[in-house]
C-alpha cells in the first residue's frame, strides 16, 4: 500500500488551510481522513487543488478497504485438518423390501 502521506499529500501552501468536513476543522496538514476529502474532490473540483496529486477513485477505494481490514481483522482461520475423501456412494436400486409398503396413516 502506498504511504498515506504520499497518497494524500497536501500542497505546502495549504498545510494550514481549514476545510470543515467529517466533524473536524483541523488544518489539512494534520488530517488523517484526507481520503474522504479526496473523494469529495470528485464532486467539488475546487477541493482538488489542496492535493499534490489527487488520487484516483480506485486508489482511494483500495486505501479505504485496507484501512477497513486493519480495523476489522478477519477471524483467525480454523486449523487445517486432513480430510479423507469419502468413498463414492453406491447407487441403490430399490428392491421390494426397501419400498415402504406401510399404508397405515401416521398419527
Amino acid at each position, binding site marked *: 500500500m502506498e504511504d498515506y502521506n504520499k497518497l494524500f499529500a497536501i500542497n505546502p501552501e495549504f498545510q494550514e488551510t481549514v476545510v470543515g468536513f467529517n*466533524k*473536524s476543522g483541523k488544518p489539512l496538514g494534520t488530517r488523517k481522513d484526507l481520503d474522504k476529502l479526496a*473523494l469529495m474532490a470528485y464532486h467539488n473540483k475546487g*477541493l482538488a487543488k489542496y492535493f499534490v496529486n489527487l488520487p484516483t477513485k480506485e486508489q482511494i477505494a483500495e486505501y479505504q478497504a485496507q484501512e477497513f481490514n486493519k480495523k476489522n481483522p478477519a477471524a483467525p482461520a480454523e486449523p487445517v485438518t486432513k480430510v479423507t475423501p469419502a468413498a463414492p456412494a453406491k447407487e441403490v436400486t430399490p428392491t421390494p423390501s426397501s419400498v415402504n409398503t406401510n399404508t397405515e396413516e401416521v398419527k
Partner: protein
Amino acid sequence: MLAVQVSGYTKPCVPNTGGISRVWVFDPADMDYTQGASPNNSYTAVALIGGATILGGSGFFAIGFDYLSGQYKAPQSVKGSSIKFAHELSLHLPSLDNDLTNFMLTMMNALACASLGFVIEQNNGHILVIGEQSVNGETIPLFRIQMDGTSVDSGKAFDDENGATVMFKGDYSRPAYEFTGGIDAIIALQGTPIF
C-alpha cells in the same frame, strides 16, 4: 413512476427534539459547500472561497440569543407549477444597547446589494444551511436572506424581555439542505468578531 419519480420517507427511530441550539451568520460570498459526496445530497464539507480569509474578516460569526428563543420555519406555497419556501429565522437578542445596534447595522449592510447566510444547529443535532451562494465551486441561483421584521422592545416591568427579536427572511425554491460535516467544522471556521 410513469409520470414522476417519488420516494417514501423512513421515520428515524431515534428521539427527536425541537428548537435551535446555536446560529452562525456568514457572508455567502465567502463560503463554498460540497454536495453530492453522500447519497442523500447533504452538504459534507465547507471551505473558504479563494481570497476569503479569517484574518480578512471572513468566517462564521456566532449570534448569541436567549435560550430557546430561536425558531426556524419555512412554510411552502405554490402557484401553478411554481413553488416557494418562505424561510424565516427569528432570534431574541437580549439587552438593548449599542452592541445590539451595531449588530443590527452590520445585518442591514447586506440589505442593499448583498445577502446573508446562516448555519442553524438544531437541538436535535442536525445542522441546516440557508442563504448559501456557492456549491461545488459553482454559484447557485440567488438564495437571498435579509433582516426583515425585526422588532426592538425595552419591555415595561423588571422581568419583561429587553432587547430585539431579530428576523431574517428569504424565499427560495426548496427547503434547506443539511450540513453533515459536523459542528466542529463550523466552529473551526469562526471569524474574528469586529466588536
